[in-house]
Every structure is written in C-alpha cells, then in structure tokens.
C-alpha cells in the first residue's frame, strides 16, 4: 500500500516537474507546479511529516502560487522566441541535467550510510505533528525562527520598493 502511494505521488511530482519546463505558456507551468506541490505533500505525509505537508499545501500551493498566477496575469504569458543564443542549448541542457542526476545518484547509492536502505526507525505517534515542530521551533530553534521572520519582513518591504510605481512615473 505504501509503495503504491509512493509511486503514484512520485509520478505526480515528476510529471508536474516535467510539465513546468515543457509548457510554452507560463500559466500552465504554474498549474503544473501546483500538481507537483500536491504530490510532494503526499510524499511528506508518507514520511510522517504532517506539519510540513500541511504547510506545503497552505503556504506553497495556496499563497505562493496565487502570487504567481497574479503576476502571470499581469505580465501576460508571452511566448519565448525560438532564437538560441548558445548553439545546441536545447540538446546540451538535458544532457547536463542527466549528468547531474547520475552524479547525485552515484553519490547517494555508493555512500556508506547503512540506514539508507531501511525505512528508518519506528517513531512514536506524534512524530512530525504541529505540536512537535512548534516545540522545536520555539525551544531549540528560536533564533533561526526569529531570523526567518525578519527575512520575511525584509522581503515584503523589498518587493514593495521594487514593484512600487515611482513618483515621477505617475506624475
């Protein structure tokens, strides 16, 4: 059962990822990314990471993707020119990507981590639920938690400064 769920979610995640890079229209790319994110949330659930899965759906597939859809609607999904500045880019890029995948796989599969071939230890019922993550965030990882909140504030202010209409433009 678990294996079936894994393969369904893996095919969804991979299909979404391929859809993102294959679609001509950026709007469809965003929709493919949403499929990818939902499949990843299912994979996180299989890994008993309930809070991360919920955050993935609510924050990513919800809020961030709405932002993308707004910007795509504002900017308009212009088609890309077929002009290639680097000759053979269309063949070279997948080749380099496959080389990267082979390299990463060799690194993982030939590592000395014996636990890689196991399911991991049995965990108690509350593993990865919001209470456990919240306790870790507020006790052990308080400083990174606060630093990330400052980072979010900076990003929000920065985006407003970047995208705001200039005075002289409106006048």
């Amino acid at each position, binding site marked *: 059962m678990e294996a079936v769920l894994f393969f369904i979610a893996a095919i969804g995640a991979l299909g979404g990822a391929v859809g993102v890079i294959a679609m001509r229209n*950026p709007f469809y790319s965003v929709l493919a990314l949403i499929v990818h994110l939902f499949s990843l949330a299912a994979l996180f659930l299989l890994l008993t990471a309930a809070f991360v899965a919920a955050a993935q759906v609510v924050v990513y597939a919800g809020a961030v993707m709405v932002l993308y859809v707004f910007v795509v609607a504002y900017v308009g999904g212009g088609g890309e020119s077929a002009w290639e500045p680097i000759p053979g880019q269309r063949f070279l890029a997948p080749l380099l990507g496959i080389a990267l995948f082979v390299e990463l796989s060799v690194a993982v599969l030939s590592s000395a981590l014996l636990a890689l071939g196991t399911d991991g230890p049995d965990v108690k019922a509350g593993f990865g639920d919001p209470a456990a993550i919240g306790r870790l965030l507020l006790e052990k990882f308080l400083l990174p938690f606060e630093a990330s909140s400052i980072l979010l504030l900076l990003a929000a202010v920065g985006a407003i400064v970047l995208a705001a209409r200039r005075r002289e433009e409106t006048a």
Partner: protein
Amino acid sequence: MNTEWFIVLSALLFATGAIGILLRRSPMVILLCLELMLNAGNLALVAFSRMVGNEQGQVFAVIVMVVAACEVVVGLGLIVAIFRRRLPLNVDDLRELRG
C-alpha cells in the same frame, strides 16, 4: 519505503529543475524551476529526517520554505519592475549586469 527511493526521486526532481533553468528563457519559468530545485532539497531533508528518526530536519525544511517564499516575493517584484519599464522579459536580453 526505503529512504533511498526518496533520495533518488529528489535527485531526479533536482536535475529536472536544473534542466529547466538551463533551457528556458522567461524569468518567470526560471523562478518556477528554482522552486522545483528547492522542493527537491526539501524532500531530501524530510527523507533524511525520517531516516534518522529526528524531527529537526523537518524544521530545516520549514525554514527552507520561508526562504523560498522570500525568493519568490523578491523575484516577482523584479519581474513586475522589469515589465513596468517596458523591458523584454527574456534573460538573454537582460544582460546589462553581465561584466
């Protein structure tokens, strides 16, 4: 499921995102491919956290999500600013910062 499967899947997703970044020329799609790569990293983090039986890797994944959200906000702000100035939305034409 073995942890290996999750790690290999995450490597595959990472490579797919890298192919997209090398292949596409619209800054919006390049941002989406960056998301793919960050999410692949997240999957590896959560898989390793399950393998060790410790939730701290999941906290790491949550922080990565926060950083990804910041990156999206600034990137989309840049795209809107580029669009406002009537510049082409094509990373090959936007090469003024190149040395």
